[in-house]
């Protein structure tokens, strides 16, 4: 996967994750172009389209569009399910996620995505494992918030 974009029906970008190095100018151009193209498509149309030399896979969840760019040989359907799994993860974490959750907690949305995908490849597809990792991170956060030194925190599964 080369990048993932989340944007609203109004065309507002909510999250962007790039797995290829591009200049800011290029990123902005791509984003503008893709948001326009995808928003112009009608609901019953297929979720894939050819765009430059990439394939775009997108899906709409309520008011949010999830849009991934994959390479020629990549599998479209499995990418569609990557999007779905990510939505499931967000949903489980936030408890019926809505666009507002992602706006206000964008950093969490990033952390969850990073646990799931790394460098554009699925790292861990088990929902349980991803959530466990996030949960651990949150715990760690709590511990450090309560003033405990994180080095003294011993992860039980690490021993």
């Amino acid at each position, binding site marked *: 996967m080369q990048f993932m974009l989340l944007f609203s029906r109004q065309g507002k970008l909510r999250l962007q994750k790039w797995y290829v190095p591009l200049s800011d100018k290029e990123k902005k151009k791509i984003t503008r172009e893709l948001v326009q193209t995808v928003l112009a498509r009608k609901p019953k149309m*297929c979720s894939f389209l050819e765009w430059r030399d990439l394939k775009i896979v997108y899906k709409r969840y309520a008011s949010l569009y999830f849009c991934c760019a994959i390479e020629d040989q990549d*599998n479209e*359907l499995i990418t569609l399910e*990557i999007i779905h799994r990510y939505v499931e993860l967000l949903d489980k974490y936030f408890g019926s996620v809505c666009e507002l959750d992602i706006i206000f*907690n964008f950093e969490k949305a990033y952390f969850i995505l990073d646990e799931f995908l790394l*460098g554009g490849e699925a*790292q861990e597809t088990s929902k349980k494992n991803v959530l466990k990792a996030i949960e651990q991170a949150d715990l760690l956060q709590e511990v450090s918030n309560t003033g405990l030194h994180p080095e003294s925190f011993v992860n039980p599964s690490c021993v």
Partner: protein
Amino acid sequence: MPAVSKGDGMRGLAVFISDIRNCKSKEAEVKRINKELANIRSKFKGDKALDGYSKKKYVCKLLFIFLLGHDIDFGHMEAVNLLSSNKYTEKQIGYLFISVLVNSNSDLIRLINNGIKNDLASRNPTFMNLALHCIAFASEIPRILVAGDTMDSVKQSAALCLLRLNRTSPDLVPMGEWTARVVHLLNDQHLGVVTAATSLITTLAQKSPDDFKTSISLAVARLSRIVTSASIDLQDYTYYFVAAPWLSVKLLRLLQCYPPPEDAALRSRLTECLETILNKAQEPPKSKKVQHSNAKNAVLFEAISLIIHHDSEPTLLVRACNQLGQFLQHRETNLRYLALESMCTLASSEFSHEAVKTHIETVINALKTERDVSVRQRAVDLLYAMCDRSNAKQIVAEMLSYLETADYSIREEIVLKVAILAEKYAVDYTWYVDTILNLIRIAGDYVSEEVWYRVIQIVINRDDVQGYAAKTVFEALQAPACHENLVKVGGYILGEFGNLIAGDSRSSPLVQFNLLHSKFHLCSVPTRALLLSAYIKFINLFPEVKATIQEVLRSDSQLRNADVELQQRAVEYLRLSCIASTDILATVLEEMPPFPERESSILAKLKRKKGPGNLPDIDDARRNVNGNTEHSEKTETTNKVTLVRTASAYLLNLNSTPTAGASLLVDVFSDSSTLASVEVSDENFPRFVCKNNGVIFENQLLQIGLKSEYRQNLGRMYVFYGNKTSTQFLSFSSSVTCNDTLKNHILSTSSVDPIIEGGAQVQQILNIECVSDFTDAPVLNVQFRYGGTLQNIAVKLPVMLNKFFQPTEMTSQDFFQRWKQLGAPQQEVQKIFKAKHPMDTEVTKAKILGFGVALLDRVDPNPENFVGAGVIHSKNTQVGCLLRLEPNTQAQMYRLTLRTSRDSVSQRLCDLLSEQF
């Protein structure tokens, strides 16, 4: 989930986000953001050291502002500070900011690297993971990946991290003993680790397949275990009742890096797996959820890709085809789309081509009924791929009828496809002519030049279709409004073959002429030029209309036309028709000779449009109409008198750019053949004998400048292409050709961007080596598209022998001693010539120095004379060289004498230098 996660106490951030959301207008939002940016900036600059929490909060705000689409140009330092914090949340935000905002070229990288290094070294797995997520450097990772005591989740991150590194900078992580151990991760108990490792191995195997061959058997074994497992076996790795779909897809991808396994047992095990996957597609779904069907079909499509990749098991291929056939009528648009796409590749396999053809009706139906243009596009592709002689007429007819309503975005491509299929599978050329004329009628605007050139080429080359073509274009031209492309084809064909239908009084010469001329005033300049050529051809074919046509040519609107090209044609053709005898006229205006036969230029265009590899190869045993045999371009013109040449060149030249010359109807895409027809510009060549920089070529569109430097036997030439227009040059390409003796002199040519923006300049670098002495010069060939027209330019590059001079200083005594040594008659070349420029001593000195030799003072007894010495460096030898130039101001003459150890060198240098004074 812990409630603490939401907002985790960064109230300032939440308030800021709410503020932004409450902004009523864009201006208000920008104002609020600027205020916040100013605030953060002052906080960061302030004297008071910020605590970690505030730093984190502000960095978070910056991130949010960035997400809104604003540029962030500060805060990086603070983020890097957060990296080295001991608090997890601060570290995490630091990493987030860096991975979202920092480009790899930033100078902060060193600082970031330090932070990452520290975290990698820590024994804290969460920290290690954070670091791996953001990684920018390398050597430790393989160790982490294969170490026995590494936690699973860290292994996963490490694997993908390596993959990333391998893609961006492979030299950072050299292959080593860890590679063998990586393959064994395919056996790991933890499916998450296997998933991550498979991605890594696939990437590595694509680069060096031999090193990872052992992965085949492991992958097959793993796949087999997954597909045969009950859906609940894999617990959390089962996704909507599908066992580990991601891993399956990845394993199937990995296997596509290799040919079918040679080992029979392994091979049959793999076949079994693939069969199981195909069988599962037939089972009733375990869930009505779309996720179930997507995941299942994702695996199925990947399996089909593997079957097509192997292209060795006919039964599997046919089964795959049948399965896709079912999907063609599925109610899910996504599946129809993918089925059409996959079938395209199946069509090119000899085992499944026939099976694909059985679905023709369904595909045609898709073309007519699909509501989504991207699906229709796939249907067009598939029809194209499945076309062969048996169904060509049907497919071409369907495509033509679809063209009437097709989306504008895909019309041009359909036009090309129809033109190719019509040509390729034409048994009956009247059908071909009809098809192309239909094409022009339906979608004239999308018929590119290549298409109508091609129909003319074919008509000219096949005499059995000429009469029919003349009759058909004549009829088509009767329509009150016809496309300009039709006028072009009509003008050309009637000009050549109008005599074949002139016997019929309804299409008598005068009727033909009047018909063509009735379109004349509505046409653009290039078409008018073509029509004028058709008229002069008419004068030859039908003496009875000569007077009428001369009348037309003589009219002010022609003879005094504001357009030079039209005016010139009118004047020349009129004169030609007046003074030339019938015999001469008949010779000059003879029917065009057959065109050299080669691959269709349209096909080349489509290939370029789709990119190589994307176009299914439909070229089986059947040959092109014109076959593929290459003829020399020159057959067209060489055996005719010069006049014919000009006339035929004119007939072809619609573009009125002199350099594009006679290349119009020849295949505009095959480089080597066009060269012959492009005149090589060497106008400015002599100017570069004594200097290295300047403009070598210039016309209305393009300027080519040169800068060169030479040292001993090596040289480097910078070529600058300047677009003088305000429009883009497309498909820009340039190459250097030289004859055999010169071939190894050009070491390398850098690549140039295919697009040159209006007003822009691009640079190309040539590296040159003088291998041995030479006389010819390499030719630079430039091609590009400007406004729909292909421009061909050839320029002789000033790479000359004297460029490899090293000046040699010597005394008078030495000079004359050597001069005597080089006394053999063949070693000396002398030339006496008249001065072309004013005889100025300083200018002459500068020229001799520019030529490359040292100017030796007080060597010649006569102070008026110039004496020089130098050594030519080539890879093989060095040739010493002495020269003497004696001006005679009274007679305005020079005598130039050159002595070198090699006669060819003396001759060449003398030729080069004598032209300079």
